[in-house]
């Protein structure tokens, strides 16, 4: 059971209790940058986000794997 689940732009975002992120069942690498105190992913190398939710939404909106 994910700690968080939501639908965004027809994609399912799931965040587990151990901070794993999935979009449409696909695991999305995400790292907490302790220096910047923000989350980032290899999908979006130039930006970082306050939360995994914000990161997930950006991956959906701005990458070819999920963007529309």
């Amino acid at each position, binding site marked *: 059971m994910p700690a968080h689940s939501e639908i965004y732009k027809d994609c399912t975002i799931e965040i587990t209790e151990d901070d794993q992120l999935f979009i449409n069942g696909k695991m999305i690498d995400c790292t907490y940058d302790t*220096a910047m105190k923000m989350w980032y992913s290899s999908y979006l190398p130039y930006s970082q986000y306050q939360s995994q939710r914000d990161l997930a939404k950006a991956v959906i909106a701005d990458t*070819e*794997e999920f963007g529309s």
Partner: protein
Amino acid sequence: MATRKDANTLTSSERAEFVNAVLTLKETGIYDQFVLRHANAVMDAIHRAPAFLPWHRRFIWDFERELQRVSNNPDLGLPYWNWPQGGENASMWDDDLLGGNGDQFTRIVNSGPFRSGEWTIVNRSGVATGPLRRAFGQESWAASLPTQQEIEAVLAVTPYDVLPWNTGSDPSFRNQLEGFRGPNLHNRGHGWVGGSMLPMTSPNDPVFFLHHCMVDKLWHEWQLRHPNQGYLPMNGGPFGQNLNDPMDSTPGTPLSNRVIDVIDSAALEIEYDQLLPSTPQPDVPAPDPQQSGIEIPPDGSLQGGAIGTPGEVDLYRFTVSSFSQYTIETTGDSDTFLTLYGPNDSSREIALNDDGGENFNGRIAMNLGTGTYFVRVRLFNSSATGDYSIRVTPSGGTEIPEISINGQPVSAAISAQNESDIFRFHVTSERSYTIETQGTTDTFLHLFGPDSQTTEIARDDDSGFGRNSRIQRTLAAGEYFVRVRHFSRLGTGAYDIRVSTS
């Protein structure tokens, strides 16, 4: 030498040449290979780390060479995006170059050569997914482009990088230029364009290469402003980040894939149209053609020399009367640096070397054709003084390999940067002959004769199959000489050569 220019200043013909070259690379699939090389690299190995700048320098250098190849113009330089003058209304976004912003709702680019229907982007697997997208200034963290003041502030930051060698590095020129500290230059450029420039597949947008050309220009200017500041870490950092480490997802040809191999812009023949007012001009100027230097006989005899004052540069010259391999080297306790020029041109740099000889002496070994060559000797540390000896030694004999007309092809290789191979063949009856190379190496041929190694009568780049050279010409009886080199002064590779009756 190719000059990289401000994209806004390109002429109509330069724009057309660049666009056509990009479209050709796209048609042949080569463009998408660059997208995948960036997209599938280890993100933390090429971003958020010291190797960010050398990795991308090599990446765009490889792309520039491909542009030169398909346009058959070795002087085609990658344009750069001059951010302070590169906003939405800048001419670089006109329809004859990059095309403009994307649709306000769909973000799809509908104008210019990379518009929807004419250009398709790919995902990390190389699968086409749709049109190019841009959304100028829509990311909250990238609503504007870097200003000149912000650029100057970043150029003043030293050292190159510091522990922990990541986004937390501070003070760090690399981290400030990349954008995780300070005013945010590089990252902000990606964010300002938005759309397809946001993910790891960002090279899908051709502006990526202009953007990173600007990034590289600023690193180049920083190197000129801070000549005593080197790349860091030299060692002790994460693998792939140290000076002598191979860089992730970087090919080992036509030059080695280490960080150190791209530190020197001049060695890569990178030149920019103009530098910022506060940036000093590159390095020590080439030898004055009026100054011939001290002549040394190319017979292996040692000639004593000395750098008596810090920053001094000594100049020597020697004359080659027939083709052979020569070794130019210093001996002694000084840490020397050699630069070789020629033939017959004291400003045409063909090789340089730091520690290829004994101890920390410089050594250059390469095939040289006839002519006069010039050697500059300096110390690696511009603050030092010291004695040395220099000698030029022929080796490998003076026998020029002969090619039998209509015989088996001769196999050879350009095994070092700026190397040339020379062959001879003998014509007994006047008729048409074809001299050509075979293989995958991008060769360039020069034909000399008859009975002369210096009278050039023909040259060719890509008239053969693929990137091979071919010269077809009616030749009178006599001895002819063929010089084979790589198209790029920095390239290496194997090839076959043959001479046949046409």
